[in-house]
């Protein structure tokens, strides 16, 4: 067994290899732009060189003269599209800025023309020959620009209903023995999944097939249908494999309906492969934030007052925000809490969710502040967390369904060797390198959404599972196959899983770490329907015993325990009794507390996630603790992170192999979020400067030395039938704070602005 496949502990599944492993190592896994098209035309985008203003005139003569050009589409001749509302307002779109609608420009890099040609090379050349005259107005780029507007998120963002608060913060802070006030900044970041934002559209009569990497095929299908003004049943989105999502493919971008409209007009399939730099402006990003934290505590470290204020930049058109205070006000016991989230509007494209959208920026602030408070108190930062640990969140007084935060701290501290840390800053070194140890907590809400599934079993045990889930690298195929095999008692190799196709039964968006909990709960339920039919056939005269009821999934015992009954199902015998060749069941599952319109919304491609702090009588989060070692060169100020250790508890672990990989990738993302990633903005032009993979720094292999992932055994029967909390967005939270805490330990310097670069170190 390799390190990649940890032995399962209690309440963990088997670390079987990925279902899609062979396809992925042989090049047979087909992503959107790999899909064969019959005689496609190639599209190339032209994007705006200004951030604000209008297009006066296009000069297309030279571009049209390029051999092979078929059509150049601008706002003057673009297909007419209907508007789609923002996803958070009941629509499907990630932005309401609709390019090619008028001469107006809302942000730099907005699509202003699409060149279609017989070849990619011709389309590209012609795009470079498109001449545009603009009337430009000075744009507002970000926080420090003139012309921005700022207002509270509450009241303008439909999903941000309340600024969490409890008790009397001002009074308690005033009276506190130890106080901390600190401001933290986090940068704009771009997802940069490896797969480009490709879209191919092919019409067959009135039916449209879209090949596009998506984290939500039902949302995209309905959104494009709405924009084109056609019946959603005529649109099919196909993407059996997605080359990374990280949030960038969760909501519809304007490009899809534009390409679909042009393909319809030309009567020919169109293939669009946008460039990497275009991806920075035609999709979304993580918005930059400015935050302030105030902590008041007594000398023993008990938190008495906490205030967290955050401001986030959004576009003029849309009031997007992540509002991470919903998590940071509930993580620790504290009787007096206040918070405020505001949105700053600038001439930018609308931001969107990026891996752990609220938690990455907001826990950077809170977990840095906790470390600063520990320093003020002269206290071990782990002990400060222990003193303020709680099983009841302070805002609504609801109990956590389960919470293994301190168990994670203790396990990770042991593995890391935290006890060897000398607490004084600048007290550890190795030659020219100052050494620092730091830690931070992580948490992520447990979320679930309604999901359907269809399962078909044949007499020989061959099983086919159909669900419009998404394989974005998480291991979705694998854990769904495992769930079906375990539940039906058939060998894993007999299970085939079909996903990434909007013609299959609907599943929720692959976002908010809800997929495993939602899709596996649905698949489990449908497998139980099949077991029930087969059992009834095999034992028609027998009344089912309680134990047998559990075995067929009718009992109240949590699914994870009921899966292995004492009465194994003889599938062949049941089939003989039924006298059929195939047993097929379809079912729809929804989580407890899901809104009444859940199933209708599910079929209409609308998200209805429940969980986290928004549950009725309880609150559900996954937890973890992260420890890092940094080394700062005392002469060059080079910063290295040789060790990342994380311990995580997230309910049932379906597959320790895929779970470990995802958490490992998350830890590296967290390191990157502290030391590498940040989109630089040219303030004069409201333009992203480092919009490519050489200048937008992401980790490479040489940046990553030692990563250790510890999976804690945890059972939680109060969240969903499979007992899964979701962990895709757990590990990259808090790491940024742990690294800055370690840098403080190494150098004595507190850094409150990300990313940390060597020029920020003043040893």
């Amino acid at each position, binding site marked *: 067994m390799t390190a990649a496949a940890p032995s399962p502990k209690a309440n963990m599944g088997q670390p079987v290899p990925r279902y899609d492993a062979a396809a992925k190592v042989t090049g047979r896994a087909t992503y959107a732009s790999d899909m064969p098209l019959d005689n496609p035309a190639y599209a190339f*985008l032209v994007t705006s060189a200004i951030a604000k203003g209008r297009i006066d005139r296009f000069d297309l003569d030279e571009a049209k003269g390029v051999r092979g050009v078929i059509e150049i589409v601008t706002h003057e001749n673009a297909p007419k599209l209907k508007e789609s509302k923002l996803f958070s307002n009941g629509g499907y779109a990630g932005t309401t800025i609709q390019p090619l609608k008028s001469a107006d420009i809302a942000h730099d890099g907005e699509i202003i023309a699409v060149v279609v040609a017989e070849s990619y090379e011709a389309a590209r050349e012609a795009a470079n020959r498109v001449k545009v005259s603009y009337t430009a107005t000075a744009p507002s780029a970000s926080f420090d620009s003139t012309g921005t507007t700022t207002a509270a998120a509450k009241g303008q963002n439909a999903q941000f209903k309340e600024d969490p608060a409890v008790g009397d913060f001002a009074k308690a802070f005033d009276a506190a023995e130890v106080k901390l006030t600190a401001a933290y900044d986090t940068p704009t970041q771009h997802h940069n999944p490896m797969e480009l934002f490709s879209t191919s559209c092919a019409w067959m009569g009135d039916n449209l097939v879209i090949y596009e990497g998506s984290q939500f095929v039902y949302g995209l299908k309905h959104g494009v249908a709405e924009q084109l003004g056609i019946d959603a049943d005529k649109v099919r989105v196909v993407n059996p*494999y997605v080359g990374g999502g990280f949030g960038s493919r969760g909501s519809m971008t304007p490009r899809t309906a534009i390409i679909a409209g042009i393909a319809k007009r030309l009567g020919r399939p169109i293939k669009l492969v946008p460039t990497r730099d275009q991806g920075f402006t035609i999709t979304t990003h993580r918005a930059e934030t400015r935050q302030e934290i105030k902590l008041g505590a007594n000398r023993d470290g008990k938190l008495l007052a906490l205030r967290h204020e955050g401001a986030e930049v959004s576009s003029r058109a849309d009031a997007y925000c992540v509002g991470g205070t919903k998590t940071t006000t509930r993580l620790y016991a504290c009787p007096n809490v206040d918070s405020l989230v505001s949105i700053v509007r600038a001439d930018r494209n609308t931001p969107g969710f990026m891996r752990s959208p609220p938690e990455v920026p907001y826990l950077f602030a809170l977990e840095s502040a906790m470390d600063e408070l520990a320093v003020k108190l002269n206290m071990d930062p782990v002990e400060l967390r222990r003193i303020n640990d709680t099983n009841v969140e302070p805002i609504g007084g609801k109990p956590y369904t389960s919470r293994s935060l301190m168990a994670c701290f203790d396990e990770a501290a042991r593995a890391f060797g935290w006890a060897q840390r000398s607490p004084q800053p600048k007290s550890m070194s190795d030659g020219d390198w100052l050494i620092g140890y730091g830690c931070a907590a992580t948490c992520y809400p447990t979320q679930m959404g309604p999901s359907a599934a269809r399962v078909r079993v044949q007499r020989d045990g061959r099983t086919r599972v159909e669900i419009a889930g998404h394989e974005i690298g998480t291991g979705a195929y694998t854990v769904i196959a495992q769930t079906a095999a375990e539940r039906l008692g058939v060998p894993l190799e007999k299970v085939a899983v079909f996903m990434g196709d909007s013609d299959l039964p609907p599943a929720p968006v692959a976002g908010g770490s809800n997929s495993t909990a939602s899709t596996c709960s649905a698949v489990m339920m449908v497998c139980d329907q099949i077991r029930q039919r087969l059992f009834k056939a095999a034992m028609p005269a027998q009344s089912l015993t309680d134990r047998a009821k559990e075995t067929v999934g009718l009992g109240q015992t949590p699914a994870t325990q009921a899966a292995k009954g004492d009465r194994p199902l003889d599938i062949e015998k049941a089939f003989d009794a039924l006298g059929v060749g195939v047993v097929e069941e379809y079912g729809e599952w929804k989580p407890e507390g899901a809104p009444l319109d859940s199933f209708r919304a599910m079929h209409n491609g609308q998200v209805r996630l429940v969980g986290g702090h928004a549950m009725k009588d309880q609150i559900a989060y996954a937890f973890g603790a992260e420890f890092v070692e940094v080394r700062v060169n005392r002469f060059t100020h080079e910063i290295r992170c040789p060790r990342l250790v994380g311990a995580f508890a997230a309910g049932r672990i379906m597959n320790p192999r895929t779970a470990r990989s995802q958490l490992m990738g998350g830890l590296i993302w967290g390191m990157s979020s502290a030391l590498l990633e940040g989109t630089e903005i040219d303030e004069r032009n409201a333009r992203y400067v480092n919009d490519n993979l*050489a200048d937008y720094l992401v980790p490479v292999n040489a940046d990553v030395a030692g990563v250790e992932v510890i999976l804690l055994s945890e059972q939680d029967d109060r969240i969903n039938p499979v007992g899964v909390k979701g962990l895709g967005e757990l590990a990259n939270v808090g790491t940024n704070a742990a690294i800055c805490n370690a840098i403080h330990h190494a150098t004595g310097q507190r850094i409150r602005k990300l990313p940390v670069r060597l020029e920020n170190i003043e040893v």
Partner: protein
Amino acid sequence: MSDQSSSRPSGFDRRAFMAGAAGSALMPMTARAAAQDASAPAAQDPSLPVEVTLRVNGKDKRLRIDARTTVLDALRDHLKLTGSKKGCDHGQCGACTVLIDDRRVVSCLTLALAAEGQEITTIEGLATDDRLHPMQQAFVDNDAFQCGYCTPGQIMSAVACVKEGHAGNEADIREYMSGNICRCAAYPNIVAAVKQAAPEIMKG
């Protein structure tokens, strides 16, 4: 208020250079097309297709393509070998890595015309007789990928990394595999996979 007269199509500088290159540096190759064609003036037009024979995974493939077509686009759009991936088209990410005469090359920065007469090996040409190449098997065993998009490039790069003698220890593997970005960050598992496969590849 200002009046600007520019658009911002992507990758302008490199593309402009390449468009220029097609008309100048590559003339000897397009000239061959001209020699085969009686209408010489038209054939000198760099936007006319040229004929090229690429040797891919041991087979000769004859193509009529735009002179500016990269090896990557020739493989993907003209030969239907879509295993090699486009992640940046700028030689920055490594997703398009193939072997050309056993050397690892970013196929997005290599013109197809320039690869004529050389042996191109892609991810599709690595497995033999339905048996995975040791590096492919090692990637499976060590879960050295998540979304899988960078994986073909990682594997081709890893095979070359071993053959170059750069897989002797973990630090070397990390350094010499750093031309291939994995955004899912499967890096520790990639290092483990290269370590596992290296002895077998060197042996055989």
